């Protein structure tokens, strides 16, 4: 799927002096840390959401914080947009380059600076891969809890920018619960130390504000993350359901029974059908939905909890229940879930992943609505999701080479997001707004809240140079969007409050 990103831009940067900028950057970066040739820039034209592409003026690959400061100061003085980039696995176009700007890649800053097993903390550079932290901590019986499916590739800087989650976040928290300190370079090159190695810091919780801020407030050059003791044992219960609604209700029943599983994930029939030939996880292909429900802790604790989970699942009408017999089987059960995106990528030329989050009790309702939308738009959709926290990942399958399919896909996605808001949820649980969902923000927030976001932005970056056109739409854009939306006759929920 491809499309040069030609969307309307909110701020005009067309007067940026490209050659002057490149001259200034080459004076402060080693030659290998600055890319300007089109063939080199190509590798950075998109992130994991490849539908939107743009070439930047240059890509800077600083090797240390001093160089990051240098790049930011230069861009600040010259009024040049800066887009920070980690591993580029983001799914909302957050790292999409600005065509009059610089991509600031943190990929070379990938050292684990220290790991203190006694304090259960690791100090890392932003380009360190999520999984690398867990690997380094493993000899001490520790791990880094948030485990996005992209964990072999994605960087901790990107995780911080998106407040990334994973299948174990229900019990162990999101990135915001597992990062205790950040070194942030602001757009004017100032270094701020936010948080510390204790359990709180004086003043406002700026750390929480920064996590999930999508590279709009500053560039993270170092972070301290919490390490968690690895449980003695983990087992996963896999339950089949002949009805998606029953599976949805089982999720609520488990929580109601006072159980907080270490992971609680759902896949529908389309998803298991895509995954099984690829991963051979042993999924029940006759089931309309399967639930993966993990318990961890001491062996006694796990035995007690698994029995309780089994009972609830049975009562909720599970047609088959299997419990992983050993670690290999547990890993296999999860492997299918974690490989769901690439698996769908194998059966469809293109897919588009949505990220709405809704109250758990509305899951069944949402899935039925999505099934109806499949017919309406003439596109298939597989559903995998973090059921425990109501975070859906509908994967809409399409073929970008068929004229009109991408547009239909976008309309399908937008309708899911609007329904997420209507059901009391949000347009994004963990992938961020980025470039992709900028218009959907106009559905979720009224202009007063958006204005408050802009005031926060200007407290950090008054010139609006960090990641422009992303995450928070201008009021002007929302007004335009509102008009277009109604004109095209696509307004699916006219009862939604507008402004």
């Amino acid at each position, binding site marked *: 799927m491809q499309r040069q990103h030609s969307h309307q831009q909110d701020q005009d940067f067309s007067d940026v002096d490209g050659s002057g900028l490149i001259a200034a950057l080459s004076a402060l970066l080693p030659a290998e840390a600055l890319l300007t040739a089109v063939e080199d820039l190509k590798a950075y034209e998109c992130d994991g959401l490849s539908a939107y592409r743009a070439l930047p003026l240059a890509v800077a690959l600083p090797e240390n914080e001093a160089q990051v400061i240098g790049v930011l100061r230069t861009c600040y003085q010259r009024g040049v947009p800066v887009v920070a980039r980690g591993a580029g696995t983001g799914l909302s176009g957050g790292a999409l380059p600005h065509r009059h700007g610089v991509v600031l890649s943190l990929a070379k800053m990938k050292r684990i600076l220290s790991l203190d097993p006694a304090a259960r903390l690791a100090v890392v550079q932003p380009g360190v891969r999520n999984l690398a932290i867990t690997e380094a901590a493993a000899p001490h019986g520790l791990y880094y809890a948030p485990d996005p499916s992209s964990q072999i590739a994605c960087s901790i800087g990107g995780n911080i920018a998106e407040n990334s989650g994973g299948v174990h976040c229900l019990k162990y928290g999101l990135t915001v619960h597992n990062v205790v300190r950040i070194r942030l370079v602001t757009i004017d090159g100032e*270094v701020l130390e936010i948080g510390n190695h204790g359990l709180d810091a004086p003043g*406002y919780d700026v750390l929480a504000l920064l996590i999930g801020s999508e590279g709009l407030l500053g560039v993270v050059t170092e972070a301290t993350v919490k390490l968690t003791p690895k449980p003695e044992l983990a087992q996963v219960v896999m339950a089949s359901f002949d009805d998606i609604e029953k599976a949805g209700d089982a999720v609520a029943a488990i929580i109601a029974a006072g159980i907080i599983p270490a992971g609680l994930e759902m896949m529908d029939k389309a998803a298991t059908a895509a995954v099984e030939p690829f991963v051979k996880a042993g999924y029940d292909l006759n089931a309309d939905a399967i639930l993966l429900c993990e318990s961890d802790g*001491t062996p006694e604790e796990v035995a007690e909890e698994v029995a309780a989970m089994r009972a609830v699942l049975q009562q909720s009408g599970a047609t088959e229940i299997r419990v992983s017999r050993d670690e290999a089987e547990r890993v296999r059960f999860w492997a299918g879930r974690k490989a769901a995106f690439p698996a769908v990528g194998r059966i469809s030329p293109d897919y588009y992943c949505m990220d709405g989050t809704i109250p758990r009790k509305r899951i069944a309702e949402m899935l039925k609505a999505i099934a109806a939308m499949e017919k309406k738009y003439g596109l298939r959709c597989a559903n995998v999701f973090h059921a425990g926290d109501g975070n859906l990942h509908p994967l809409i399958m399409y073929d970008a080479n068929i004229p009109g399919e991408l547009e239909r896909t976008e309309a399908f996605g937008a309708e899911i997001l609007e329904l997420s808001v209507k059901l009391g949820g949000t347009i994004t649980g963990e992938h961020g707004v980025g470039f992709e969902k900028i218009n959907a923000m106009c559905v979720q927030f009224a202009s007063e809240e958006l204005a408050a976001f802009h005031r926060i932005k200007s407290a950090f970056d008054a010139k609006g140079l960090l990641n422009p056109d992303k995450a928070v739409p201008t009021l002007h854009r929302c007004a335009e969007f509102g008009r277009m939306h109604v004109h095209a006759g696509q307004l699916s929920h006219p009862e939604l409050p507008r402004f």
Partner: protein
Amino acid sequence: MESILQEWQERIRQGKPLRIRGGGSKDFYGQALAGDVLETLPYRGIVTYEPTELVIAARCGTPLTEVEAVLAARGQMLAFEPPHFGAATIGGCVAAALSGPRRASAGAVRDFVLGVKLMDGAGRILNFGGQVMKNVAGYDVSRLLAGSLGTLGILLEVSLKVLPRPAAEATLALPAAQDAALALMNRWAGQPLPISATCWHDERLTVRLSGARAAVTSALAKLGGEVVDAGGKFWAELREQRQPFFAGETPLWRLSVPSTTSVVSLGAEPLIEWGGAQRWFRGALDAEVVRDVATRVGGHATLFRGGDKSVGVFQPQSPGLLALHQRLQRGFDPNGIFGRGRLLSAATTTSAADNGRSDHA
């Protein structure tokens, strides 16, 4: 309820400084109070509570005890175990962001805040976050507001994540010198043990275990020590600072430090919580000395209760961070209506991190 909000907007419009007050249980906390009192008590009531969603939403003036009772009836709790210190409200609980004994294992107030409805310094009513566990649309303003001590606006309504109460709980105690206790707490915290609270004082380490029955039983056997029968009472008194250590008028200092920090000597023996990360000291200590010690180990010190607040209650921020705080504050409260200075003290001793000192203002 609507009329209360209109009345508050009218008071904001009048432009006189206001001090937001719930039950007044945290009046002792923070820099000197200023402004006319704005009582949140009338704006009360639980808005939604859905046990299967693990979420409760309540108006700011709702008594904390009411929230806790409603949760307890369904076997759930506020996992950060907030202290009441009197007739606390849920709004004040989030605004002060004080967490109790379970903090080190379960998380702090901010970790459980999902959404906030705010009336800012221009009288605007703003909604941030919501009722779902995961939400990255827009900046996380709800968590920013936790601990803002009424300086950014009135938290009209908060929604919080709740958790099931543990199936079993037990307390054990063992004799230990301070350095040995610190080592033990950190070693245990690195193991998969169901420890939910720790307290060291008077050469004695007390530990609470919470979780599945089987887990608690096996941990009890593993950790040794003697079982404390009145464990519940011990932790309740610690949470409310009703233990003898906290009695009397002597100033109470709170040091928040990395848990592995070795013994900190500031005259009297401390009381230690949170696996070593929270250390309480009593005494008319020299603020400069306390702050230096805290800074040197990478933590911060708060003059929690009593004493001379003119030395600054909170550890001063670095100049860059202070300026950012002020810009943020102006964004929410352009006219400086709310609780001026309760959080951001005018006193600016500089922390060692800034490689320099500035004079007291």
